């Protein structure tokens, strides 16, 4: 029997509970109406259902690694596939989803910024973990949204926090020497998290990079660190800084430019011949 969307949903929830990746596929369009709505799923070595054609199942299974980068834990897309079974052949449009354990936001440093950042990370659908060496700060009651709050030793900060490529690490410790210790560990990982951000002024970030260079890291490795972390919003308070970091993480995934949309689209200027309102950058500001 063709697995129903309700059945598939139960299977996805089960996979996520076990921390497994699962792909689900459904035929959404085909010249053969008998294929439309047929479903197939695959998780680890197990799979079930069918798209109505063995060669179509095989084509979709073979395409999965290229369609969904290993670093991503979520995905949804439609692609056209060909199938050929005996005398039957044709095309089918297949909608495929990937569901995986959510990526994490690991916040190192449980101070002022960590509190709003943990909340925002949770709202973005990330699994939030907070690390600090001070038990008073790394206290679960301070971070109700976090799935884990750990007291760590900065000599080996990620000892109990194995990191995957799709994770995000934000370094906001109370001292730059601690941030530095974490950074060195992260850069030396065989498969480092794809998003590593460190807070700091230009001067302090420069000092960190000078130290990295002295410790033998290449400029290419240094360039992988997002420091200073966040988008340039001009905010100062812990909440404002957390918003700027969260915004950068959204941009990192969604591929935006971080530019205000009013400046990117310039609707009034383009279509009405007048500079649009908003905040002109200093270079384009005109004096009356």
């Amino acid at each position, binding site marked *: 029997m063709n697995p*129903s*969307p*309700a059945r598939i949903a139960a299977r996805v929830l089960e996979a996520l509970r076990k921390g497994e990746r699962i792909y689900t596929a459904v035929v*959404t*369009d085909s010249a053969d109406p008998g294929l*439309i*709505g047929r479903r197939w799923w695959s998780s680890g070595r197990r799979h079930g259902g069918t798209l109505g054609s063995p060669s179509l199942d095989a084509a979709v299974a073979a395409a999965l690694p290229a369609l969904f980068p290993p670093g991503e834990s979520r995905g*949804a*897309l439609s692609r056209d596939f060909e199938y050929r079974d005996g005398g039957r052949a044709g095309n089918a449009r297949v909608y495929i989803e990937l569901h995986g354990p959510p990526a994490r936001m690991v916040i190192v440093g449980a101070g002022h910024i960590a509190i709003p950042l943990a909340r925002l990370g949770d709202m973005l659908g990330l699994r939030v973990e907070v690390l600090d060496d001070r038990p008073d700060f790394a206290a679960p009651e301070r971070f109700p949204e976090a799935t884990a709050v750990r007291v760590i030793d900065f000599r080996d900060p990620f000892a109990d926090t194995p990191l995957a490529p799709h994770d995000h690490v934000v370094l906001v410790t109370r001292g730059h020497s601690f941030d530095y210790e974490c950074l060195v560990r992260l850069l030396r990982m065989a498969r480092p998290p794809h998003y590593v951000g460190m807070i700091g002024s230009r001067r302090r970030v420069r000092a960190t990079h000078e130290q990295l260079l002295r410790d033998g890291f290449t400029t290419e490795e240094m360039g992988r660190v997002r420091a200073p972390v966040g988008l340039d919003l001009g905010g100062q308070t812990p909440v404002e800084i957390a918003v700027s970091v969260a915004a950068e993480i959204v941009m990192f995934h969604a591929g935006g430019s971080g530019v205000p949309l009013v400046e990117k689209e310039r609707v009034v200027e383009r279509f009405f011949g007048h500079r649009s309102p908003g905040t002109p950058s200093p270079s384009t500001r005109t004096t009356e």
Partner: protein
Amino acid sequence: MDEKELMARLAALEEPAVLATIVAAKGSTPRKTGARMLVGTGGVIAGTVGGGCGEGEVIEAALELFRGGGPRTVRVDLTDELTSWSPAVCGGIMDVFIERANPDHFGGS
């Protein structure tokens, strides 16, 4: 309602429902590929495929599945409404796949 909540709702359905999923989106659509909505005989149960922007059209199409219609893709074109004052001025095209969420609850049809 986040994705996981909607999944849980979908897995636990006890009344017939139609699932609408955005399977492709181009241009400026309010929700992106992967967004879902559950429609019952009385209207939307959970989720959204974009609110004012084309959602009414999807709900209409979904309701047909309670009257015996089969699964199909509905193309919602929001690009031709730019000059109207309707709330659907978004400027994108999306394909929404609609199907019975739990065929075993649909009785004899």
